């Protein structure tokens, strides 16, 4: 395991922030850490990175206590923090070279240019970071996190400020990194990002983990079937009853309302339906899935 947190308790200035947080992240996995504002996500990340001392519980990164471990532990970790500050007078190349050297890497300018291109950043030659847009800064932050080719990436709202294409680019990059064995802890409010990238999530509310595990299992355990509205341009070639994991709830003209089993991802279900001759023209989510699970768990806590 790259990160193991169990029963984490933590106070800041005598005020208890975390009461009982747990999560586990393995190699090649993208783990979503979810929760409302002030739930304790960033504090959990700070504890995992050894920036805050826990009051109790177990925190391990690469099998070591990050609070006690020396700074060498950061050699294998790339971080995109929630608040991103840069040295505005530097260029992206200078900035990345500075952090590469701090990570004891002697990468040349070509490597820096590769890193910049890998995150889709396209600055003008000699352009100072101070003139970057928010999206460019976000990409640069990710490039900095990747500069040491980390085994573990900790990302706090990494797609903030990115346009849809930028988000998609970052998603693709994260999927590629996970494929190479990098473990990614993704802390975000964007449930679409989590739905697309993560197999497992932890949901924190008021400093406690209220749910943790495989998304499909959590959705199933909460009996939150995902309901979708499909528009078909013609009649389906296969009877709905013959298709696994999909049940038709209603049929109103060209619109078909279907429930999906939590065991199947929407993408897989649509592929199956198209394969079986469903002429799908449009898909709309009606309810269910991660969104409803998240709202139910966090609202229950608030109530």
């Amino acid at each position, binding site marked *: 395991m790259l990160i193991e947190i169990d029963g984490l308790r933590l106070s800041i200035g005598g005020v208890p922030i975390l009461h009982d947080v747990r999560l586990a992240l393995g190699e090649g996995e993208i783990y979503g850490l979810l929760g409302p504002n002030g739930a304790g996500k960033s504090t959990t990340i*700070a504890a995992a*990175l050894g*920036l*805050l*001392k826990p009051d109790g519980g177990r925190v391990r990164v690469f099998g070591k206590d990050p609070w006690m471990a*020396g*700074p*060498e532990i*950061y*050699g294998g*970790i790339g*971080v995109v*923090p929630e*608040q*991103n*500050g*840069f*040295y*505005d*007078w*530097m260029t992206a190349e200078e900035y990345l070279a*500075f*952090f590469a*050297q*701090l*990570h*004891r890497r002697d990468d040349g300018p070509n490597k820096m240019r590769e890193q910049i291109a890998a995150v889709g950043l396209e600055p003008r030659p000699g352009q100072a970071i*101070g003139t970057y847009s928010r999206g460019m800064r976000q990409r640069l932050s990710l490039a*900095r996190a990747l500069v040491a080719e980390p085994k573990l990436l900790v990302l706090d709202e990494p797609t903030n400020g990115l346009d849809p294409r930028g988000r998609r680019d970052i998603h693709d990059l994260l999927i590629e990194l996970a494929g190479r064995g990098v473990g990614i802890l993704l802390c975000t409010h964007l449930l679409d990002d989590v739905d697309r990238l993560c197999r497992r999530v932890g949901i924190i509310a008021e400093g406690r983990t209220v749910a943790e595990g495989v998304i499909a299992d959590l959705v199933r355990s909460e009996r939150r079937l995902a309901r979708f509205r499909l528009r078909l341009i013609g009649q389906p070639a296969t009877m709905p009853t013959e298709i696994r994991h999909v049940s038709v709830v209603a049929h109103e003209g060209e619109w078909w309302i279907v429930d999906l089993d939590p065991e199947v991802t929407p993408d897989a279900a649509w592929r199956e339906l198209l394969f079986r001759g469903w002429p799908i023209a449009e898909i709309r989510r009606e309810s269910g899935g991660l969104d409803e699970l998240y709202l139910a768990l966090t609202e229950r806590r608030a109530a």
Partner: protein
Amino acid sequence: MSAARLIARKEAGELLLSLRGLSWLMAVAVALSVFGLLLVSNTELSLLDNAQVVYDMVAIVTALGGLLALVVGLDAVAGERERGSLVALLLTPASRDAILSGKLGGIAVAWAVMYALALPYLWAVGSTGQNLREAVTILAVLGSPVVLGFGFFGMALGARLATARTALLTGLIGLMISASPLLLGPSLRQSAIGRAFDVINPISAAVNAYDGVIIDSQPVLGQWPHALLAAAWLVLALWLARSGFRRVAR
């Protein structure tokens, strides 16, 4: 290159290449120009003995150096923390001591630049006198630990206080109190409280040494009691900065 040297080079770049750092240096140059012009052109001040004029300029350079170092020190911790750039630095394999050393190096660069900036002004007001070389020497020997101490003190405040604004206000109050011997008349400084304050105040140590060397033409080496106080201040400020920085973002 070691992490400390890398960070010191970055801090120097922050001072010499960023708009913020250049603004501070410009403000210091303007202040020195104003004081220099006053000392050589004001009818009453131009009647002062040349040694007295050089003494005044050296004291002003020390006070301005202390202010610059304080601001640079505060910004290196509290400013970077508020801008969000400090945490990225803390999450590298560089040790806390290496990061601290680099930032202390940045303060030393700021003082070196300030010192170099002050030389033409000192020459302008003191080239006709006899103690200019001694003034430049005592500024380096006594001014440096006092000014660097304020830089380290700024780092300590930046590390310990919650916001950069609170740290800046606290630092400025501390600097003003410490620099009060420059503002107080001789009679107040000779009072019991004034004398007691002089014993523990680093700027008093510097000012008294300047007085001895520049005005009374005493040898620089004879100022060792003042140098001892300045060194003690430097060590105390360094200890405060180190212990504070270990707790930053923790």
